[in-house]
């Protein structure tokens, strides 16, 4: 699990690991999401995002060990690789769909591998919770044009919330394990 601060939409409450059934459901949710992205079903992907989503990928910095907690990653309000909501994410999808967004035309071949899924629920939960915290690792392989190949590896901290009867991604913070980004552009979703 990442040491970086994880924001939730809730006031600080204690969390505990979810039971096996919820864990199984949430894990399947993440795998299905990865599949939507890899099959380039971006419009369908938007549907599993909460309308109030915050989607942020902070920058990672090399700093002294005793400051890692506070400042290895840029904080909300600072520069990031991404820091946006539903509107911008939909615009990104619309841009890809124009067919003239050259950074994704021809389309990349992408595989999202998602693992180390941990699901947590508020400790005072009775019955099925409305909101869960999910931690996962990702390894994303992207191949573009002939030989252009990029690997993105890192951690995600999500908050999923039930919305109209389905889980939706309400918060996603993406901790990429790179200081200098070793890709010329970020045109895939995380």
């Amino acid at each position: 699990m990442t040491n970086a601060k994880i924001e939730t939409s809730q006031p600080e409450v204690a969390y505990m690991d979810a039971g096996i059934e919820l864990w199984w459901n949430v894990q399947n949710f993440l795998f299905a999401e990865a599949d939507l992205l890899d099959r380039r079903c971006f419009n369908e992907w938007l549907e599993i995002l909460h309308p109030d989503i915050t989607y942020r990928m902070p920058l990672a910095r090399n700093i002294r060990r005793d400051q890692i907690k506070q400042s290895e990653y840029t904080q909300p309000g600072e520069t990031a690789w991404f820091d946006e909501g539903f509107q911008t994410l939909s615009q990104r999808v619309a841009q890809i769909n124009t067919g003239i967004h050259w950074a994704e035309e021809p389309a990349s071949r992408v595989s999202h591998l998602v693992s180390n899924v941990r699901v947590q629920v508020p400790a005072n939960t009775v019955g099925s919770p409305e909101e869960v915290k999910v931690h996962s690792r990702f390894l994303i392989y992207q191949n573009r044009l002939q030989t252009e190949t990029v690997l993105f590896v890192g951690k995600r901290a999500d908050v999923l919330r039930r919305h109209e009867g389905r889980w939706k991604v309400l918060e996603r913070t993406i901790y990429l394990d790179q200081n200098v980004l070793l890709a010329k552009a970020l045109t895939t979703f995380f």
Partner: protein
Amino acid sequence: MRPIEELVQADQGLVRRAIFSDEDIFKQEIKQIFGRAWLFVGHESLVPNPDDYFVSQMGTDSVILTRNRQGQIQVLLNSCSHRGMKLCRYDHGNNRTFTCPYHGWSFSTDGQLVERPGELVGVPGFAKNYMGELDKKSWGLKSVAQIHNYKGTIWATWDPNAPPFEEYVGDMRLYLDSALDHRDGREGGSEVIGGVQKWRVKSNWKMPAENFIGDLYHDISHRSVDVVGIGPSGGRGRRDAMQGRVAIAFKDLGHGLLGNLPHYEEPDYSPMYTAYPEVERYYREVHEKRIQNLGNNMRVKHRVGTIFPNMSFHGWQPRTITVFHPVSATEMEMWRMYLVDSDAPEEVKESARHYFLRYSGPGGMTESDDMENWTGATAASQGDIAQDLYFNYQMGIGHTKPVPELRGAVVSHEFTEENARAYYRRWAQFMQGSSWETMTPTY
């Protein structure tokens, strides 16, 4: 290597592709250009407190931008004078002295302790192993020859003979002001939003420098984002409109931009950030203050520009500083910082930050397509046959007018390659090793 006169024939609008792919030419560039020119190394807001440092880059050398206890800013080579170890291994931090992790030599910038910044102060075993026989004074860290703080931006050169910074930038300085000054017209007053984006791009470093100098012609490659619309006022397009935009080249200095000619009266307010009513009010207010603060003084406004060789900046929307650090003939590391008025209300800073990030950087919906162009052009210039061909920079040759208010400047319509010709003419002068005397215009 072919003679420079053959590689660049700026007046004819011809530039041989080899300058974007040949390693020997690249090595010459590092020496002749990055070893002599004034280079942007950072912003003072990256080192706000005494003993703060920020690790930066000049050409292919790592350097330390640091503020000492006396508040002075220094730029030192980030390499130990003993056996070369990189001294600062963190991106930024706060240190009284720089101690080498290899054998423990330590260096200080503290004016109380040392005569010159970066002087060697501590040598383990100085008495016992060196028997005191080491001339510490001559083994300090290499320091840049000159440093200049321009409204918070820090510039440095390794060349003691380089002309003063203000002479080097000439009247391009006014356009730098248009990015760095407060939106209400007060001098300075901008700060960098926390965090510097750094990313690797397999492009020759000159491709973006040339693009940012005023290549409006390439706007077609941003059609996808214009169709979708990401501007701060909603609707189609990616920015709020700018009236009266022209291309201006400083033909003797190699700098250039897209923006407005100097003017003496503030043009009428055109609404900005209308998707955020609170923010729009701020821009309307600062516009009114600008009218009061600037009175009848000359002023300029620009969209985008490049200061030779590798620093570019957006002045208005977005508002950023970007640097193209050379890595090899076919690779660079881009850095980008985002600027805001330091005393602006939080909502204004936040809306700017969100807008800048969706526009620029590797995740930027506009810039992601730029990198595609630069990497594609670099790759396709590496073929044996391709290398020997010329790029065409012939748009608008001979169709310029002088700008009386700006020394040595010429103006073209929005669409021109005049600015790029000025840039490569300057490149050729540096590469030929011309003396500063012949390279510095007298007006």
